C-alpha cells in the first residue's frame, strides 16, 4: 500500500483548513457585523468558486498561478519558484474552492450570537479583539466545528482542481482522491474499493469523534 498520497492528502487538508480559518474568520466576522452595502457583493463573491466545475476552476487557476499568470508570474519572480504543480499552489487552489464552506457556517454562528454578549464583554474591559477571542469565538465553537468538518472533508474529496493545479506529482501533489481515481480508470477496482473504504472509514471515525465532542460542548444559545 502506498502511504504517500494519504500523508499528502492529510497535510493538504490540514493546511487548507488552517489557512481557511485564518482568512475565513475575519471575512465571516465582517460579513456578520457590517452594515456596509458592499456586504452582499462580498457574500456573493465568496460563494462564486462553487459555481464553476472544479476542473474548469482548476484550469483558470492553472492559468492564474502558472509561470505567466497574474499570480504565479509575480510570485515566481519574487521567490524564484513557481506556484503551479507545487504543494503551495494546491493549498491556494483548495482554499479558494472550499472558502464558502468555511465562511458560511462561521458567519451563521457569529450572526446567531449577535452583539449582546460582545457588549457585555466590552463593558467588562475586553477590547474588541479580546472579546472576539474570549467570547465570540468560543460561542461560535459549533460553527467552527461545522466549518472545519466541511472544509476538511471537501478538501479530502477535492479532485478536479487539485489534479489540474497539482499535476499529480507523486510525493508532492498526488493526493488520495487522485489515487482512487487512477485505480478506477485503470480497472484496478479492488484497490479502488480498498482505498475508498479506508478513506470513508477514517473520515467517518474522525467525524463521529468530532461530533461526539461537539455534542458535549456546553454552548447552546438558547
Amino acid at each position, binding site marked *: 500500500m502506498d502511504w504517500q498520497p494519504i500523508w499528502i492528502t492529510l497535510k493538504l487538508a490540514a493546511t487548507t483548513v488552517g489557512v481557511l480559518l485564518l482568512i475565513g474568520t475575519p471575512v465571516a466576522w465582517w460579513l456578520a457585523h457590517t452594515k456596509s452595502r458592499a456586504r452582499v457583493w462580498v457574500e456573493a463573491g465568496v460563494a462564486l468558486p462553487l459555481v464553476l466545475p472544479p476542473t474548469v476552476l482548476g484550469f483558470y487557476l492553472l492559468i492564474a498561478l502558472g509561470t505567466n499568470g497574474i499570480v504565479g508570474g509575480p510570485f515566481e519572480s519574487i521567490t524564484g519558484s513557481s506556484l503551479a504543480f507545487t504543494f503551495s499552489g494546491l493549498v491556494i487552489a483548495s482554499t479558494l474552492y472550499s472558502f464558502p464552506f468555511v465562511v458560511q457556517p462561521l458567519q451563521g454562528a457569529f450572526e446567531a450570537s449577535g452583539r449582546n454578549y460582545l457588549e457585555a464583554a466590552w463593558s467588562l474591559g475586553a477590547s474588541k479583539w479580546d472579546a472576539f477571542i474570549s467570547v465570540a469565538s468560543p460561542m461560535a465553537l459549533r460553527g467552527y466545528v461545522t466549518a472545519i468538518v466541511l472544509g476538511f472533508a471537501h478538501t479530502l474529496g477535492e479532485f478536479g482542481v487539485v*489534479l489540474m493545479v497539482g*499535476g499529480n506529482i507523486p510525493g508532492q501533489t498526488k493526493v488520495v482522491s487522485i489515487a482512487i481515481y487512477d485505480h*478506477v*480508470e485503470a*480497472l484496478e477496482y479492488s484497490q479502488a474499493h480498498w482505498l475508498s473504504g479506508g478513506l470513508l472509514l477514517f473520515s467517518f471515525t474522525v467525524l463521529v469523534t468530532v461530533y461526539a465532542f461537539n455534542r458535549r460542548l456546553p454552548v447552546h444559545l438558547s
Partner: protein
Amino acid sequence: GEVTVAVASNFLNPLKTLIQEFQKQSGHTVRTVSGSTGKLYAQILHGAPFDVFLSADSERPRLLEQEGQAVAGTRFTYARGKIVLWSADPHRINADGQNILHRKNFRRLALANPKTAPYGKAAVTVLKRLNLWTSLSPLIVQGENIGQTFQFVATGNAEIGFVALSQVGDPRLKNKGSRWIVPEHLYDAIDQDAVLLTRGESQPPARAFLLFLKSDPARERILNYGYGLK
C-alpha cells in the same frame, strides 16, 4: 436513424468533422458522448445507452467483447495514436528533440498518467528506451488524461510535454509552438480500437457508422489529424 457514439476525449475533434460528413452521406444523426476511456468503459458495463465505442486503447474494447457487452468480431483499429514532444514556445524544441531531453534545460515535463492513459504509457516507454526515465522522473507532472497534459504545456506551466500528435495536428494549432515527432520505434503502438456495442447490434446506423469509419475518405481525414493507421 440515430446512433450514440462514446468516444475517448482525444478523438472527439476528428470525430466531429467525420460525423458531419457521415450525416450528410447517410442521413443518420450521430450523438457523441466523450470522456476518458476508463469512465466510458465503466459506464458501458453498467448499462450506458451507447451504440458504438471508440476507445483510446485496444484493451477495453477487447474486455467488453469478452464480457459480452460488445458484438464479437466488430472490433478494429480506427486510428493509431502518435505522440509528440511539444512546447508552446516556438524555439524550445529543434529538429532533434532528444537534445532537450538530454540537456534537461526545462523544469517540468508533462505527460499523461501512464496508469490510465495509453499516451502516458507510451511516453514512459519513450523515456525508458532513451534511458532518461530515472533522471527525468523528478521533473514529471502528470495530466490525468492527454487533454489535461496538453493544457499543462499550452499554458506554459510545463515547458515541454508528451502529447498526442492529433492534438497539435489540430487545424487551429497548426504550426504553433515547437515539436519533435517521436519516432515510432521508441514506443509500442497506441492502437485505438472501435467496437460495436450490444445495444447497437440491432441498429443499422451503428453498423453504417463503423463501416464509414473504415472508408478511405474517413481514413484520410484521420491521418490528416495526426493519427497513424494500422
